């Protein structure tokens, strides 16, 4: 299948995008590595590094002033005419999820967001993605080319693009493109390259059951004493008890620690998708019927504070020996 990968080189998570796409390609028999990746970037010093990380054997580096949806859509639409593709693949980050859907509209194709697998059939493709807030997985058919797909967040694993010995690279400079007229002024408060939560080997995650901001602050102290990174479920962040950059789950950070201590979380799929890559999950919850109980490796049915206090005491005692 003739396809293109679209990556955002203006984002600090470029390597994650490559890893996601690379893993997806490795697990998708229908897609060979012979394809073009279009990378939008604005820092020339990073261009060769981006090209080397690319998951396919052909690279088109497009220099732009800044990554703006309208600009990127216009360039992609223009590039389609001389070099059409059957399929466009985007990573599941904010930009990819948005542009996949809008590009399909402009190219009169069909789109699907947050895809986690793909199979080709005669005149259609079959994709899966989670629905019903993550409780179910749906199989979908798309039959109008070009198919524009954004991938599910959290696709990581074995990446096999090492077989690419030489990449064919072309470059173009579109940095003179005018910015969209509807934006009068724009400022960016840059994101950190990788959050502490994404890299942590030990994560403590607090859910709605922590009840208030004061308890969140106590939890922050406990996590520090345990040497763990702290994350929270959506209700905790939405209530303003914790900052947004602590949000774990489908709409937040996908953590993949060795150990996750899930405290007072119900375990809804939207949250669980943010910790399910943990090697070991320990739940502490007063409700034996909570979904997290079955989804954890170990569960303590009790008040999280009392259990956490004792765990902290034991861990510190061993540390101080």
């Amino acid at each position, binding site marked *: 299948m003739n396809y293109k990968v679209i990556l955002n080189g203006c984002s600090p998570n470029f390597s994650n995008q490559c890893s996601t796409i690379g893993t997806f390609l490795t697990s998708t028999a229908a897609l060979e590595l012979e394809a073009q990746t279009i990378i939008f970037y604005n820092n020339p010093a990073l261009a060769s590094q981006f090209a080397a990380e690319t998951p396919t054997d052909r690279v088109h580096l497009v220099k732009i002033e800044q990554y703006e949806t309208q600009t990127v859509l216009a360039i992609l639409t223009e590039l389609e005419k001389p070099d059409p593709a059957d399929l466009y693949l985007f990573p599941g980050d904010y930009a990819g999820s948005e542009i996949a859907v809008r590009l399909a509209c402009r190219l009169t194709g069909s789109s699907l967001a947050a895809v986690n697998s793909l199979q080709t059939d005669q005149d259609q493709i079959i994709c899966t993605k989670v*629905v019903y807030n993550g409780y179910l997985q*749906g199989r979908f058919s*798309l039959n109008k080319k070009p198919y524009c797909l954004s991938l599910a967040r959290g696709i990581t694993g074995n990446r096999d693009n090492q077989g690419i010995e030489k990449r064919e690279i072309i470059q173009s400079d579109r940095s003179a493109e005018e910015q969209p007229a*509807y934006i009068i002024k724009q400022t960016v408060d840059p994101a950190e390259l990788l959050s502490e939560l994404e890299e942590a080997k030990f994560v403590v995650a607090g859910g709605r059951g922590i009840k208030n901001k004061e308890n969140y602050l106590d939890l922050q102290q406990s996590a520090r004493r345990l040497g763990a990174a702290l994350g929270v479920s959506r209700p905790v962040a939405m209530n303003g008890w914790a900052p947004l950059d602590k949000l774990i789950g489908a709409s937040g950070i996908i953590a993949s620690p060795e150990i996750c201590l899930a405290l007072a979380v119900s375990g809804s799929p939207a949250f669980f998708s943010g910790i399910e890559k943990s090697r070991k999950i320990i739940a502490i919850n007063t409700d034996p019927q909570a979904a997290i109980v079955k989804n954890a490796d170990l*569960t303590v049915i*009790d008040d999280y504070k009392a259990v956490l*206090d004792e*765990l902290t005491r034991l861990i510190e005692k061993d540390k101080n020996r």
Partner: protein
Amino acid sequence: MNVLVCFKVVPDLDQLSGSDWVVDGCSRVETRFVKRMINPYDESALELALKMADQARGSGVTLGLNSLTIADSGANLTLKSLRALGYQEAVRIEADRDLEFAPEDVAALIAAYVLSTDPLELIMMGRQSGVGDNAKTPLLIAELLRWPCITQVIAVEKDAAGTYLVTAMADEGVVTRIIEPPCVLAIGNAPSSTLRVPTLRAIKEQSAIAVKTYAAAELISTSPTLPVNPGAELLTLEVVNRNRGGLIIEGADATEKAQILYQSYLKGWLAEL
């Protein structure tokens, strides 16, 4: 009206137990008995618009708010509550079929409504909603109307000059833009955006006022033809199994359970880090 906020009343799927997840012959799960709620992202959109109207009023600017849902008459109560909260209009589109997995058709209905009503400055709605989890509707509306769209919005304000200050999460960080309308805003994780509660008196005042209702077919037939793209067709559904076994640690009290957890499991796991 300046601002249209679209919302959806959805089942609270977290209320379903494991045995409730039975897929019927039409690739759906029975959710009619489950408590309903406003989709959380849409709820944030509704509250952000109210906050924006409050803030604009403080600066001497009046902001007209309109709310819209595509639903059966069960949503009328929510629409009347929104009127009681300060939404000047509450509109319901009666669909003639299940649209859970048809975001292209939902977007076409909303775009048709927008084209049939007075000019708007903003359309606000949540970035995604269950049951379909399509995450496409605001983007499709923007394409149909040829408007720009900002996703993952967490705050919005209107200023006296007629422009809007929009703050949104992006892969590069937090982006703040001053924009000229019109624009579609897809609301993301906006903190402290739980929808306020109307007073009983305000609800009583709205109870006799009928909700403006449109039939989907009538709306589409009277609007300009829109280029609706083909969507993805749902073939099958299956339950996602995340079960890890869930060994429960027994003990006399929290302290003893913590000690067993630590000595038998956690201590060894931590040593391997």
